[in-house]
């Protein structure tokens, strides 16, 4: 097994600031905008962006929710491993809101497909956008593309992209793992 650094800590931070600025361009004061981190690993990125927007760019009261898509996945009973659910925490209604899905890696697009269905349980959003730190090109199974991307990566199927966060894994970095 070999691994290659795709983004180091400095590069991750630059990407986060750029993504935050791009969000501000489109959403201004975030009055009608909510961030939804996708479980399990999208929530770290979503929390980072929220604190960056609030502390460095002085935007107040950004609403953040966690969405778990386990019960909406299309591979139930088809995988070898059973699916494990995570917590969903959305304490607001997304009716007529601008929703931004936040996830670490965009790969086949199937999780996003599930999230698009799952979010309907909380109302009808005015629009939905997608933000990912890593966009794996050429690996999509569905016609889904991100609106904001940190870095585009060409990876073949047996390679894995791993995003590490300081609060969870001890460092900020993105690795390409070849097994």
């Amino acid at each position: 097994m070999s691994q290659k650094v795709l983004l180091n800590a400095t590069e991750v931070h630059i990407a986060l600031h750029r993504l935050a600025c791009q969000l501000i361009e489109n959403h201004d004061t975030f009055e009608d905008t909510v961030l939804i981190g996708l479980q399990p690993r999208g929530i770290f990125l979503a929390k980072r962006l929220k604190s960056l927007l609030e502390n460095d760019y002085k935007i107040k009261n950004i609403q953040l929710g966690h969405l778990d898509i386990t019960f909406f996945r299309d591979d139930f009973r088809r995988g070898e491993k059973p699916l494990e659910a995570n917590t969903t925490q959305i304490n607001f209604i997304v009716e007529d809101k601008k929703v931004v899905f936040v996830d670490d890696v965009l790969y086949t697009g199937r999780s996003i497909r599930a999230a698009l269905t799952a979010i309907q349980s909380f109302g009808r959003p005015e629009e939905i956008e997608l933000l990912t730190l890593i966009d794996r090109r050429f690996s999509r199974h569905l016609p889904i593309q991100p609106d904001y991307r940190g870095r585009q990566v060409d990876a073949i199927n047996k390679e894995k992209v791993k995003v590490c966060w300081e609060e969870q894994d001890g460092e900020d970095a993105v690795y390409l793992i070849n097994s």
Partner: protein
Amino acid sequence: MSELSVNHLLGIKYISEADIHLIFETADHFKEVINRPIKKVPSLRDITIANLFFENSTRTRLSFELAEKRLSADVINFSAASSSVKKGETLIDTVNNILSMKVDMVVMRHPNPGAGVFLSKHINASIVNAGDGAHEHPTQALLDCYSIRERLKDVAGKKVVIVGDILHSRVALSNIFALQKLGAEVKVCGPKTLIPKYIERIGVSYEKNLRSALEWCDVANMLRVQNERMDISYFPSTREYTQQYGVNKALLDSLGKEIVVMHPGPINRGVEITSDVADSKQAIILEQVQNGVAIRMAVLYLLASKIQHNEN
């Protein structure tokens, strides 16, 4: 662990402590789902479930049906009262006929103890026991323990007394197994005629006096007096039963501590429990009903995940 050790839920006797915890954790997620504005998930959209009720039921049947629909399963209902069972069809024939219509899971209530176990040896579908005679009622025990866990944070180390008709009660037996597996201490209380002779052999002690039992416990589970199952007279009169084994507000207030009161329903108000107790904050009867849907969703979801997807 993220998978059940069994393919059917026939009784608490057959599952492990880890299975129970897995069901509880999964139920936590479903409890969040059923409190959403839209209370439905598509997980079981390609699963068909038959609810076979060979014995009357309102609560359990509605609860299962709601759980199935909230998981997007296709549901067919069957009740013995209006079926060919009356014409003399056997259990296996009835079920095989229903299964030949491509049913993946069966939820069954039956008056004979062991009906679920018997069926599991003869058919392929995944079976959930919704009560078999005086044997087991596993989902009721799971939702009871889940409700205790919700109210008192944990089941382990708690003292639970089950009061009333233990002899005819599948709820009692399943509850005893579940509580013991989760590390709670269990006593039973009621007229000696309604206590099974084997009770001490399964590690449960008997307390004749209701007041001493209530003083000892953290949770009192009040069972219904099952008049329909009593072929002979087990106690002199309902009035006498109520005087000795009925819980009222005055009795609860005189205990000097607050205990949790449960009841699996349907309540005989004024017999085993008075209205002011049933409607008080100490009673978690309606929480039990709500948790029932989440628990049954968890059980169906976890069992369905063990049915391999078939391309045909």
